């Protein structure tokens, strides 16, 4: 497949196919006419609020709700005890107090015995007004017996450490996966250990080991999580408006959790104000809104506030990694070994789609050609909020890329070699694709060096190094950081990847109406990714229908076919492929109809965009619009041709797609204050075919800001008493326009060979790829001080400490 040809324009000026097209969805958003969950108001709707634990670890001795219940306007007060009394006809437990997590663990909906993290759900108030619901929380009296919390993952497995999950009969804080494993290994342990040992004893080789922390961060979409649930007691129909990246998967989970028949559940995910993984999980608040409507018979709205969002919903990372890299002194990488301590919080709520419970972390061998790689991940419980995979991480590829890209820079420092030169020496070569990595991934396509050269060209790399040298001579600290990342996105295939047993494939349905206008129904759900625009472009590209004549329907389980939803950059690789496949089915039907109308064999027809015509007689043909009417009309069709112009498809991807890119960050560091200024950011992405380059670039811009934020500012830390120190936007710092530069983007296009239109996912590329570029730039700036590594976030204080030779643990406020 070659680069995409320029698409012709529709009467409205849109490309009939790929190219820049203004977004359809903007028409409502720029008018303030978006429809988010908090904009949903149903007749008779009640409001709700959740009482949360002030302690990280405490036994609940008693809860007195009488004063809250007596408050005028309060309709119901629900505790864990109430939930224990509601029988649940489900295989997953006998009452509502506990629910399954996405990793086959259990999580309390409302705490019954103990609270296990600060911010955990303890009681639920339903009232006529959101202010009254909050007032009532103040009137609930909970008697807690404080217990010693486990806040430091490194101490969670020490003998005598308080046991967090005594509810499961545990005697320590280890986590056992569904296969019975307490550690998760991948790659060749023996081969890697031998290669490293050999290198240690070889004077022509070096071995570098570095502890690297990826601290706890939070996706923090601008819209928090929420839901409006209504159970119609007469019909038994549960309708739920909710902030969901995966409406169909959520429907199945609610069916399992609540024991409700799935055909009586309708999930509507209206406009979603950003997701980034935060809206993949099923949170107690969602379930409580369902319980609220069951108990009261009225629609119940639950909308969390920002503090609740940051303290209780899905966090990301918290990976304590120790990486060892072996190489020759010429800079040829030989082996990488990684040991990870994974802090999963109080409940193992990770959403991960493989049989490997550390998600896609074992893709850590990265973009380089070497034979030996191995990792071991040891997960533990701590008294922190549950979760584990969120924040645009591609199922832990963020951690993997950060690890390898930091290790490569550590190696470059050890070898006193330019980090660009070291990368160029080791990048996979085009002829190696499809490439099987040492941990078993099959990368589909790539021309890595080309992409890296484009980035270096945009950056003016040689001049930058000269500038750096001059500045260093003047006592100014400028740094240049590289990151070369390879992502694997688009989960399944279903045989290898599922969530709670649901195979990762996606359905789609396309109908062309008699007048040639079309409706496409998707299983995936946009949180800002412009699906209403880009999916219309895919159909336009395949069928020649004007994109403005194609309505894209998504986010409502009653109106769309089943599929696993939008996260892990999987929409374009999976559902985008489905859109092409279903269009081709329609095109084939159109051929049969056209042949009947033209009284020829279908084999005699040839396609040009939007039209079948008779080979060798271009004038004799039928446009897709004409065929649409014919297919619904009185034309006699051959046997076996059903008529009408519609099709369904389920796309089960044969493999992931592997987008990649090279990022270069340029920073200036003030050694007096530790302040880092990101001066330039060059990002060259290769995500295969670009359906709408404007939208692709927008996705990259957002991810770069995420990376700058994580590298320099964002952190959910805890003190030793278990207090969350990142529970508001006063404390959890997100980048503003002042911290972000004007980005410099470039592209190469290496289509995926197995995707119908050659596209790869790109939604998370920049979030995955950019943090190491920023950190590598800062460490490069600090090289004259002898700094080899410092953990994110590189706040002024942390940078200053690193300069003083006294870096601190960033994840704990108190050692």
């Amino acid at each position, binding site marked *: 497949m070659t680069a995409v040809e320029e698409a012709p324009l529709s009467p409205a000026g849109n490309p009939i196919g790929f190219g820049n097209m*203004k*977004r359809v*969805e*903007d*028409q*409502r*958003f*720029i*008018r*303030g*006419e*978006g429809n*988010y969950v*908090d*904009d949903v*108001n149903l007749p008779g709707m009640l409001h709700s609020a959740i009482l949360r634990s002030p302690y990280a670890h405490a036994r609940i001795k008693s809860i007195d709700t009488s004063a809250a219940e007596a408050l005028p306007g309060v309709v119901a007060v629900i505790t864990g005890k109430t939930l224990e009394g509601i029988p649940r006809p489900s295989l997953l437990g006998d009452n509502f107090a506990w629910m399954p997590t996405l990793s086959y663990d259990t999580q309390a909906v409302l705490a019954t015995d103990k609270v296990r993290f600060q911010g955990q759900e303890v009681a639920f108030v339903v009232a006529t007004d*959101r*202010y009254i619901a909050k007032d009532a929380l103040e009137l609930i009296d909970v008697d807690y017996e404080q217990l010693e919390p486990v806040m430091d993952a490194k101490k969670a497995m020490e003998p005598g450490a308080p046991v967090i999950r005594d509810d499961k009969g545990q005697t320590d804080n280890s986590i056992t996966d569904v296969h019975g494993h307490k550690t998760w290994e991948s790659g060749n342990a023996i081969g890697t250990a031998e290669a490293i040992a050999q290198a240690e004893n070889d004077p022509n080789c070096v071995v570098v080991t570095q502890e690297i922390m990826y601290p706890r961060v939070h*996706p*923090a*979409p*601008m*819209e*928090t999580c929420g839901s409006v649930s209504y159970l119609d007691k007469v019909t038994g129909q549960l309708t739920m408006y909710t902030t969901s990246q995966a409406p169909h998967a959520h429907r199945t989970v609610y069916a399992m959790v609540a024991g409700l028949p799935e055909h009586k559940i309708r999930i509507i995910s209206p*406009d*979603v*104000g*950003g*997701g*980034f993984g935060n809206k993949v999980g099923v949170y107690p608040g969602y379930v409580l809104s369902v319980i609220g409507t069951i108990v009261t018979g009225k629609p119940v709205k639950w909308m969390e*506030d*920002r*503090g609740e969002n940051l303290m209780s919903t899905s966090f990301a990372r918290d990976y304590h990694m120790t990486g060892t890299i072996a190489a020759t002194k010429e800079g040829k990488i030989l082996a990488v070994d990684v040991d990870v301590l994974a802090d999963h919080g109080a409940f193992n709520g990770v959403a991960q789609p493989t049989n490997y419970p550390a998600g896609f972390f074992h893709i850590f061998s990265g973009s380089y050609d070497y034979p030996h790689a191995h990792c071991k991940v040891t997960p533990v419980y701590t008294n922190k909020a549950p979760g584990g995979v969120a924040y645009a991480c591609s199922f832990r590829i963020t951690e993997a890329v950060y690890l390898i890209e930091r290790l490569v820079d550590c190696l470059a420092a050890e070898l006193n070699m330019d980090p660009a030169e070291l990368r160029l020496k080791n990048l996979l070569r085009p002829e190696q694709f499809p490439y099987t990595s040492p941990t078993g991934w099959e990368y589909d396509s790539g021309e890595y060096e080309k992409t890296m050269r484009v980035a270096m060209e945009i950056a003016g790399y040689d001049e930058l190094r000269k500038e750096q040298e001059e500045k260093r001579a003047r006592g100014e600290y400028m740094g240049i950081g590289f990151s070369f990342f390879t992502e694997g996105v688009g989960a399944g295939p279903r045989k290898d990847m599922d969530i709670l047993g649901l195979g990762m494939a996606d359905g789609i349905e396309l109908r062309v109406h008699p007048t040639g206008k079309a409706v496409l129904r998707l299983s995936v759900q946009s*949180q*800002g*990714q*412009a699906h209403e625009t880009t999916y219309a472009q895919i159909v336009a590209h395949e069928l020649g229908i004007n994109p403005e004549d194609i309505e894209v329907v998504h986010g409502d389980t009653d109106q769309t076919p089943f599929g696993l939803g939008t996260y892990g950059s999987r929409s374009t690789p999976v559902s985008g492929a489905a859109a092409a496949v279903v269009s081709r089915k329609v095109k084939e039907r159109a051929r049969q109809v056209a042949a009947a109308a033209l009284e020829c064999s279908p084999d005699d027809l040839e396609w040009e965009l939007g039209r079948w015509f008779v080979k060798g007689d271009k004038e004799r043909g039928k446009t897709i619009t004409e065929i649409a009417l014919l297919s619904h009309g009185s034309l006699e069709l051959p046997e076996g041709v059903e008529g009408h112009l519609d099709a369904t498809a389920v796309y089960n991807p044969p493999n992931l797609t592997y987008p990649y890119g090279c990022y270069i960050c340029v920073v200036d560091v003030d050694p007096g204050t530790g302040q880092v200024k990101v001066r330039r950011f060059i990002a060259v992405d290769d995500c295969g075919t670009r359906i709408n380059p*404007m*939208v692709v*670039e*927008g*996705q990259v*811009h*957002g*991810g*770069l*800001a*995420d990376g700058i934020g994580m590298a320099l500012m964002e952190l959910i830390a805890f003190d030793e008493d278990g207090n969350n120190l990142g529970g*508001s*936007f*006063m404390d959890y710092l*997100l980048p*503003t*326009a*002042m911290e*972000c530069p*004007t*980005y410099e983007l470039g592209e190469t296009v290496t289509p995926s060979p197995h995707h119908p239109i050659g596209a790869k996912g790109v939604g998370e590329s920049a979030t995955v790829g950019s943090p190491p570029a920023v950190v590598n730039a800062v460490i490069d700036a600090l090289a004259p001080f002898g700094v080899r590594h410092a953990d994110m976030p590189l706040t002024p204080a942390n940078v200053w400490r690193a300069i003083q030779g006294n870096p601190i643990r960033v994840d704990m406020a108190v050692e």
Partner: protein
Amino acid sequence: MQVTMTINGESVTKECEPRTLLVHFIRDIVGLRGTHWGCDTSNCGTCVLWVDGEPVKSCTMLAAMADGREVRTVEGLEQNGQLDPIQEGFRECHGLQCGFCTPGMMMTGRWILDNNPNPSEEEIREGISGQLCRCTGYHNIVKSIQWAAEHPAENEVKA
């Protein structure tokens, strides 16, 4: 208590509790849902609207404090079926993705241009620095405001 204010040129009188935040008054009582709510601490700026011609974070102001004053929300940008250039700019330049911060960003963008028709990039960045966006990395928001500066409406009053 009873609160009266002019919202997008129309006088509105409604009952509310004295403690009602302006953002909740506008959204839940008046029913204009283009103004959003995103944090508790005046950091995110999704609730920005104008009071007496100045952008304010409406989660940090009581409805009672807006009594007798003039409020303009995102719904008041479009005039006589004609989009404001700031709205056109956000669409032209892909200045939004999920759309949640967009109303607040557009209200501030409009105010920046009313007070400085030719702002520098730095002035735009500083002008929107009290507001957060998680989707765009701000790049195209800056471009959108620049587009609006370059394409003023015919009747636009120059500051």
